[in-house]
């Protein structure tokens, strides 16, 4: 695997809150253009890993490289090559959906006002929201629409890497499947690399190229088929449990 093909490289990561060690000597690499799903039991630090990579948590030890640059000295150029969708959308409640999408553009770029509005409307259409969603406030949207609006904001600057924190949590199965498809479509047409923390076995089966399982404070990377053969008890239970069997059979794996 050449340097060019890896967009995120984590080496020897250690995160710790007080005396509780979350990750210890964790290595992870994410390839360009793949959808990586991150799974693990509650409290194993899936979201913490995501927050550490995007720079919201300071690691105790180890390095994180994103697009060939150390995240500790991350320039705003690299920062704006990442889009993040937080669990419940994290839309700014005092702004409309369109204004939310314009925030990163206003902050990082100098665009004519009319063009900014057009691009916001384009992102709204791309994530499958109706046109009248633009002037609405987040409180007027349903949970699924908020996630779509959050995704539109994450895509505002055409990022290279998209971070998703439990994107389908709280959606009904139909809405979750539609959101999975949307992520897959956008990922393919925009050539995105997606780093997705999830609990949703259907998402894992449907759209993830590789899966990172957080066990024993480290990750085990592999495809679904490789994990199925893993003998680690937690991984066994996760991928062979009744829920997993249904999800995997349904997707024809």
């Amino acid at each position, binding site marked *: 695997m050449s340097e060019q093909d890896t967009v995120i490289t984590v080496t020897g990561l250690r995160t710790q809150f007080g005396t509780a060690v979350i990750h210890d000597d964790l290595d992870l690499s994410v390839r360009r253009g793949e959808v990586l799903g991150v799974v693990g039991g509650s409290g194993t630090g899936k979201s913490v890993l995501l927050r550490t990579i995007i720079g919201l948590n300071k690691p105790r030890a180890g390095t994180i490289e994103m697009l060939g640059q150390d995240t500790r000295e991350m320039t705003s150029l690299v920062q704006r090559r990442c889009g993040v969708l937080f669990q419940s959308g994290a839309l700014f409640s005092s702004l409309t959906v369109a204004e939310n999408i314009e925030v990163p553009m206003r902050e990082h770029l100098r*665009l004519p006002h009319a*063009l900014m509005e057009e691009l916001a409307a384009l992102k709204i259409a791309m994530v499958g929201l109706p046109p*009248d969603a633009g002037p609405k406030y987040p409180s007027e949207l349903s949970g699924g629409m908020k996630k779509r609006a959050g995704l539109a904001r994450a895509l505002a600057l055409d990022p290279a890497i998209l971070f998703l924190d439990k994107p389908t949590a709280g959606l009904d199965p139909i809405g979750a499947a539609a959101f999975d498809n949307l992520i897959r479509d956008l990922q393919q047409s925009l*050539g995105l690399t997606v780093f997705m923390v999830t609990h949703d076995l259907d998402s894992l089966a449907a759209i993830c190229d590789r899966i990172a399982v957080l066990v024993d404070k480290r990750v085990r990377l592999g495809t679904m088929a490789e994990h199925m053969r893993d003998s680690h008890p937690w991984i066994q239970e996760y991928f062979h449990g009744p829920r997993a069997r249904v999800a995997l059979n349904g997707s024809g794996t």
Partner: protein
Amino acid sequence: MAESPGWVKSTIEGERLIVSAGGDWTVDGVGALDREMRNLAGSGSTRVTLDTSGIASLDTAGAWLLYRARRDLAAIGVTMQFSALDPRHAALVELVEQADAAHAETVRPQPNPLAALVNRIGQTVCEAADELAHLVNFFGLTIVTLGKCILQPRRLRIVSLVNQMEQTGLNALGIVGLLLFLIGVVLAFQGAEQLRRFAAEIFTADGLAVMVLREIGVLIAAILIAGRSGSAFTAEIGMMKVNEEVDALSVIGLDPIEVLVLPRINALLITLPLLTFFANVAALTGGTLMAVATLDVTYTQFVRQLADALTLKNLMVGMIKAPVFAFLIGMVGCYEGLKVGGSAESIGRLTTQSVVESIVLVILADALFSIIFSTLGI
């Protein structure tokens, strides 16, 4: 990533306008290209070819400019062709086209500004009337529940009552004492300044006693409690509402008014009169110290004069207001808390509203008391 700013060049070959584009057509650079692409529509040529062979990288923002140029030209009857469009780039343009087509059918209606203004005024008035009706309704509900609980004292929930009394009363002693002490200092100083002109400084004591006992003590204590505890009621109950704890109470068969509202209102009914008394003492102490320090009166003289003005009537005129203010603050605080909707966003707004409403109601009630007392000649 090689950075090369995007560019466009136009050349005219007879009827045909040839536009060549190159460089990076990404969101970082489209700001500069926007105007030139818009101006293509004004070129006057009937056929346009857009040569995209020079474009090094394209994202959705760049694709939008390409697609928009073609769409806008088509609208005025000019056909535009892309030449040498990279297949990956063509896919992006198509994606943008699909997204735009999904939104094209709907035309956004522009609201008439005058109608919108009238609409907004009407809405505000109706909401205010609704609010008043609901508040009166809530008032009745609270009174009825309170009556039921008094008949069955077991339901008065002593533990949460005492807990609320600690938070609203005991923990407020410091701030109430400090502020009222300072207000006493200010009142004595200002009163003495005026009365000195008539060589009647000693009557500062009378003025201080009457003002503090009848008005200032209870009013400032009530306003502090509205800001301190009324807002806390709204935030606490509002948070429980968001977590569906209030719904859980109802499902278990507990009355939220009885469990959440009554202990808080009862606690205020007990603590605000006590705080008022404490506030009076603090303000009189502050006033006395200030007067003795700055006036030509001895401590004994001043206290004797003060004692004459400290009548039971003056004290009761102030104290009788305290439970009324307490009830208003508690009721508004709890009512606004229960009004919080499904999301946490409304908590902040309703907390502000709760404090404003309770202070307004307290001062209105105070004015009403003044009218009643003056009519009765008290």
